[in-house]
C-alpha cells in the first residue's frame, strides 16, 4: 500500500468521490443511450418513420 502520510484519508476520499461521480455520469449516459435506441427501434418496428427517410424510400 502506498504511504500517503497523515492525511491519507483526505486523499483517498477525494479520489473515491471523483471515481464514483464519473462512473455515475458515464453509466447514466450509456444507460440513457441504450434505452433511447431500444425505444426508437420499437417505434420503427411498428412502421413509424421519419419524413426524411420516408421521402428517400419513395
Amino acid at each position, binding site marked *: 500500500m502506498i504511504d*500517503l*502520510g497523515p*492525511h491519507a484519508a*483526505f486523499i483517498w476520499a*477525494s479520489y473515491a*468521490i471523483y471515481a464514483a461521480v*464519473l462512473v455515475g*455520469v458515464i453509466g447514466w449516459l450509456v444507460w440513457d443511450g441504450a434505452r*433511447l435506441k431500444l425505444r426508437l427501434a420499437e417505434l420503427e418496428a411498428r412502421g413509424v418513420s421519419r419524413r426524411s427517410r420516408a421521402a428517400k424510400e419513395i
Partner: protein
Amino acid sequence: MSQIDTTPQQTLTQKLANPTRFMQLSGTLMPWFAGAAAALILYALYLAFFVAPEDYQQGQTVKIMFIHVPAAWLGMLGYALIAVSSFGYLVFRHPLADVSAKAAAPIGAAFTFLALATGSLWGKPMWGTYWVWDARLTSMLILLFLYFGLMALRSAIEDEALAGKLCAVLGLVGVSILPIIKFSVDWWNTLHQPASVIRMDGPTIHPDLLWPLLISALGFSLLFFALHMKGIRNEILRRRVKSLTMAEVDRARGVSASAAAE
C-alpha cells in the same frame, strides 16, 4: 453552354449542425476520444502516485491537485461551451447548438461539484476547514447553482423551442461568472492560492508536479468531450423518439377520424 451550380454552399459549422452528419462523425470520433482519455488518465494516475514528489509545504496532499485542478477547469469550460452554444442557437439558429448546450449542463455540473468536493477535502488538512466563504469558493458554488438553474429551467418548460431560447439567454447572462472565478484570487483577499499554471509570466509550479497535472488535465478534457458527444447523441435520439411518438399519435388520430367519417 455550361450549367451554373445554384446549390447553396454550406459552411463547416452548417455541415456539422446537421444531426445525421453529427451522429456519423461522433460515432467514429467518440471511441477514440474515450480510449485516449482512459490511457492518459491511467498514465497521469501512475505519475501522480509513483513518480511525482511530495510538495515541500503540502506534503502528499498535493496529489489532490491532479484531480482538483482539471475538475475546476472543466467545470468552467463546460459553462463556456454552453455560452458559445447558446450564442449559436440565438443568433444562427443552429439546431445542434441547443442540443449541445443541454448536453453540456449535467457534465459541467458534475465537474464543478468535483472541484468543490475535492477542494473541500484538500482544504481541511491545509487550511483547517472544509469550507470558507471566500471569493474563489463562493464563485465556484454560484457556478454550480447556475448549472442547476439551467437544468431546472429546461425541465420546467414543456415547449422545447421556448425552453431552448430561455436557457440560451440564461446561459449567456451567466457566463459573466467565469472571469469573476478566474480573477477572484487577484481582486479579493482569499484563502485560495493565486493562479500557478495559467499566468502571463509562465507557470510557477515545479515541472515534476506540472507535467502530471497537464497530462491529467488533457485526459479528463478528452473524457469531457467524449461525454459531451455521448450526451448530444442521446439528446438527438430523444428528439427523434419524441417526433416519432407524435407521428404515431397523429397517424392513429387520422385513422380513427377517417373511420368515423365512413
